């Protein structure tokens, strides 16, 4: 029994690897669900399509880290497996009580530490600084995102590029979901939609708010995620690549209640013409609703 244990162990490890790989490769989507709009982009068991100009920095760090992790794990695993086989208990074999001087381990630990420092100071802190402080100055679009249980509202400032004041006391979910004030001149040309429209290749500054609980504004294809925290206004920014027009998904990444799973919105990356047409449609004075 004892003598064959290590073989069982190896077989198990091998089996796991094979099983894991085949399953990942064979993991296919179930029948697509009708969500009203066809979503562009490619999605699978790895990072999804990236349509953001700066998204590659996130991807690069994730990729570098994974190569490093897999390398370390494989190297370390080989040593582990070697020890398990070579030093298994068997007749005539006795443990060596003298502890080895494992200089390589010290070097390995130092190498790991240095590598982590490089990741930290080379790939993380500067990028984070860019994300947090280098807001675009090239006349970005400005949009305010207001999260609520369980929907996203997109508040556009209109031609004057100024947001009107919001007053939570006058919120009317049918006619005035954000509580926009009529007497605020800055808010005269504002408009609100349930769809997020941006222009391709143009930078966007998004101010994130929440009406009730903590939500998280997550656009996988943009590598953008930011919690929406009630009582706070948190600005973020991104810029889409050229020629990425299409529809993409926005999700909520922070548990926000019963229907957290269905708190989804669609981001339309438009050409300038499409965008202008949409704005015209949304801002047109409402006609009276007539039932057929």
């Amino acid at each position: 029994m004892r003598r064959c244990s290590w073989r069982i162990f190896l077989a198990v490890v091998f089996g796991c690897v094979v099983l894991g790989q085949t399953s990942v490769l064979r993991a296919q989507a179930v029948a697509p669900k009708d969500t009203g709009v066809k979503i562009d982009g490619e999605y699978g068991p790895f990072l999804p399509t990236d349509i953001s100009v700066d998204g590659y920095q996130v991807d690069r760090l994730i990729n570098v880290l994974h190569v490093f992790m897999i390398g370390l794990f494989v190297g370390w695993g080989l040593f582990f497996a070697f020890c398990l086989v070579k030093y298994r208990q068997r007749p005539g074999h006795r443990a060596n009580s003298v502890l080895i001087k494992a200089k390589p381990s010290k070097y390995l630990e130092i190498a790991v530490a240095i590598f982590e420092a490089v990741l930290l100071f080379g790939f993380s802190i500067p990028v984070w600084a860019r994300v947090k402080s280098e807001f675009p100055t090239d006349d970005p679009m400005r949009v305010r995102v207001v999260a609520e249980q369980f929907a996203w509202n997109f508040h556009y400032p209109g031609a004057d590029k100024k947001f009107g004041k919001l007053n939570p006391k006058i919120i009317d979910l049918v006619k005035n979901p954000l509580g926009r004030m009529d007497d605020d001149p800055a808010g005269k040309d504002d408009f609100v939609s349930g769809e997020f429209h941006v222009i391709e290749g143009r930078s966007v500054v998004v101010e994130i708010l929440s009406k009730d609980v903590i939500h998280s504004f997550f656009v996988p294809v943009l590598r953008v995620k930011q919690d929406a925290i009630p009582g706070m206004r948190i600005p973020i920014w991104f810029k889409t690549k050229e020629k990425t027009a299409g529809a993409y998904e926005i999700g909520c990444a922070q548990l926000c209640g019963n229907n957290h799973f269905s708190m989804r919105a669609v981001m339309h990356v438009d050409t300038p013409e499409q965008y202008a047409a949409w704005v015209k449609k949304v801002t047109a004075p409402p006609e009276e609703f007539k039932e057929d």
Partner: protein
Amino acid sequence: MQKTFRYGVLCAFAATLGLAGVVRAADDGVIKGKVIFKGDTDKFKRSPIDTSKDANCKKPIGSWDVILNKKTDPITIKNVVVSIKEGLGDKKFPPKTEPFKLTQKDCQYDPHIIAVMEDQPVKILNGDDTNHNIHFLPKKNTEENFSQPQKDEVTGKELKFKLEEPFKVKCDVHPWMGAHVLVFTHPYFAVTGDDGTFELKGLPPGKYVVEAWHEKFGTMKADVEVAAGKPAEKDFTFEPK
């Protein structure tokens, strides 16, 4: 399933008997009338609702807070609840047993007014291919809040409200979706429809205070005397500024 059904039938039978016992056949008094609108109809146009939050909500829908029946003459108001407010004394009425069906269809509530008796079952159905979350916001009754992720026009979920009060209902996934629940202790209530009329039937003769309730225009009361065998008529006129 079988068993529940059998019990249901039994209960319904018993309830009918009870009803017959309490409300005698002679109670055939009727109050009828219409709810009239007076004022500037342009101020109360229905506006289209922005349903862009969910691409599954394809059918255009309009606001419901004020729906005027412009084809009738005079112009009447839809979705006004007319009910007996006073005059029934301490009489107890057995609850209606047939469930009130509330369907979520095209991302709006059908019907918009849920007028039910205490303990009358309300059956909530989902007629859309999207997730709905119905959220009742009562003051006295217990708050109910649950989602119906799938189209389901048969089973649904049944609820009962125990205490008399009007309160709002909304959908937490489609914030624009709203409706009103009115719970009564008695069966004498009616909701105006496309013709703006109402009829309260089966009343014992006597003096009553009748109330008309509208979600936007508020309430209005009137004294009505019901005599046996002759329908009493009473119109309500709302004159919003």
